[in-house]
Every structure is written in C-alpha cells, then in structure tokens.
C-alpha cells in the first residue's frame, strides 16, 4: 500500500507539480532563514519575504511565496513555492527576549507565538517536496534540533540541502558542519552578502530534480 501511495505521489508531482514544487526553508532560530528567503525572493520576484531581526524568533508563522521561477545558465527553469518557516527550538524562554529589550508582556507573547511557530513548522513539513536546512556556521551544529530534523528528513526521503550560512563572519566553520553531518550535502553561503548564492540556485535545480524523480 505504501508503494502504491508513493507511486501516485510521484506521478502527481510529475504530472501536476513538476513546475510548482514546494520548497521549505527550515532550521534553528536566527540561522538566517528569512535572510535567505528574502535573497531568493528579491533575486527572482523583486520583493522580499519578511522582516528580519537580531532577536530570535522573528518569524513566528509560516510565510509562503507562490510561484518563484528561477533560470540557470543553460536556460532551464524551475518553478516552486517557497515557505519560510519559524525557527525550530526545544526551549523558548521569554527571558531571552527581555534581555534584548522587550517588556515582560511582549516577551511572553513572543515566546507563546514562537512556540506555536515551532509546531506549525513541523506540521508544514508534511507539505514540502524539498527542503533547505539553514544552519548558522558560527555555531556548534551538532545539537538535538539539527540532528533530529536532518534524520527525519533523510528518513522521509525529502531531498535536502544543508546551507551553512554566515560564512562572511570570522567564527564561521563550514567544516564543522560537514563533520557533524557527513551524510548531508552542505553548501556554505552568506545570505546577507550573497556569497555563493549562485551555488544555491544550482543546488535548487538538483534538489527539485530529486523531488520529482
């Protein structure tokens, strides 16, 4: 039965969603997911996805941009919907937001919304055809959230590219991410400066091709 369902799922993608796959941007808070989403949207739609902030959990709801069409040097195109998701975390504490200058009330509200955002992110994972997992390359990559998320995506055979973001910062260490997740395809970028962003677009062609095989 699972094989039949998978067969029809692939057939559906081939026939109807080949040119409109859903790409999800996932990862821990403050890893640069929205910055990357903004970069992709700005490059191909001429508009941004959403606001960014130095305070974690700025994105607390899944945001979707429909029908982004990108083109490579060979003239090939792919179309996809892009979902920017709230950061996934195991602990959300309003005191972290208070330290950043929010009032107690604002911080507690933000914590509640961020928690709902985590659940919403995970709920949406079901709807994704392929995923970019954005990690902050200045931070220790091997933690419960990253390991659990990547294991889950591999288990579900959702084509995934790990984006090691913030390579423009001195503390960046992409090799540490490669060592932590040797099974994953990893690409170092700076979403903020646009470093290696072309490689992301090349990677998206590979990723979406895997999603419709």
């Amino acid at each position, binding site marked *: 039965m699972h094989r039949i369902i998978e067969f029809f799922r692939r057939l559906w993608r081939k026939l109807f969603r080949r040119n409109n796959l859903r790409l999800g941007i996932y990862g821990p808070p403050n890893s640069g997911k929205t910055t990357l989403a903004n970069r992709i949207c700005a490059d191909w739609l001429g508009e941004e996805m959403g606001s960014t902030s130095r305070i974690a959990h700025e994105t607390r709801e899944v945001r979707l941009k429909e029908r982004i069409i990108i083109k490579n040097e060979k003239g090939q195109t792919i179309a996809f919907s892009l979902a920017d998701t709230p950061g996934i975390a195991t602990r959300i504490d*309003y005191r972290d937001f208070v330290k950043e200058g929010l009032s107690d009330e604002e911080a*507690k509200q933000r914590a*509640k919304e961020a928690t*709902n955002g985590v*659940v919403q992110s995970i709920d949406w*994972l079901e709807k994704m055809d392929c995923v970019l997992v954005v990690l902050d390359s200045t931070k220790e990559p091997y933690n*419960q959230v990253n390991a659990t998320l990547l294991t*889950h995506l591999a288990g579900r055979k959702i084509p995934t590219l790990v984006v090691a973001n913030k390579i423009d910062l001195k503390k960046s260490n992409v090799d540490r991410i490669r060592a932590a997740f040797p099974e994953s395809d990893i690409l170092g970028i700076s979403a903020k400066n646009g470093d290696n962003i072309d490689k992301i677009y090349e990677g998206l062609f590979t990723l979406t091709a895997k999603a419709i095989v």
Partner: protein
Amino acid sequence: MPHQCVKCSEVYPDDTSAILEGCACGAKAFFYRRDTILATDIERPGSDDASVLSSTLQRIGDRVVSGDMHGNTVIIDLDMVRSEVDGQYDVDVEALLHRKDTIYTPEEGRYAINYDQLLRRRKQ
C-alpha cells in the same frame, strides 16, 4: 467493508486486489474493520510519565481491537509542549516530528491522534 492487515494494520478497501494477493508487508491475513464509529474519544492520562502514557496507549489499543471506540479519532490530552512558568516553553521536537498524525491546539494543549496509526505503532 474495509479490511485491515493483522500484521501492520494497513487498511484496504474491500474491492482491492491486496486482499487476494496479500498485504505489502507480506502478511496474508486480514480482519474486517468496523467503520461505524464517528464521534471522538478523549483520553486524559493525567501525567506524561512514560509508564502512564504507555498504559494509556495500551488501553486505547485494546479498545480499538475490541471495537469499543466511539470515534475515528482519540484525543490524548497531554503536553508535548510544556510550560511550567508563564513564557517558558519546552518543546519535544522529536515527538512532534514523529507524530505526523497529531493536531496541536495551543490553547487547550490537546492533540488529536489517529488511532489507526497509533495502533500500528503499538504493534511495531
């Protein structure tokens, strides 16, 4: 009437060839599934302690097997998102990822769980 594999609990409609050829898991035995249950049941374990949850799942599984279910969904009232202090939350990401059948409602802290999948996991 739908058929359910006795080994993996996969449910097949009654006109499928799988009933003659066997389930994808290799088993060839099926039992009829009563499809008359419509309302929703609620289970309140009272604690998320592993032993309490285990016995709750056991009890739900037994009810499913015996046909003593009133709904096609059972809601287990527990916290996969814990908040002991206002504004501080612990999220069990692994549990959320693996419970693709859950629906979260933050105000009530409730999760709706499809009992077919619940039973499948229990058998595994």
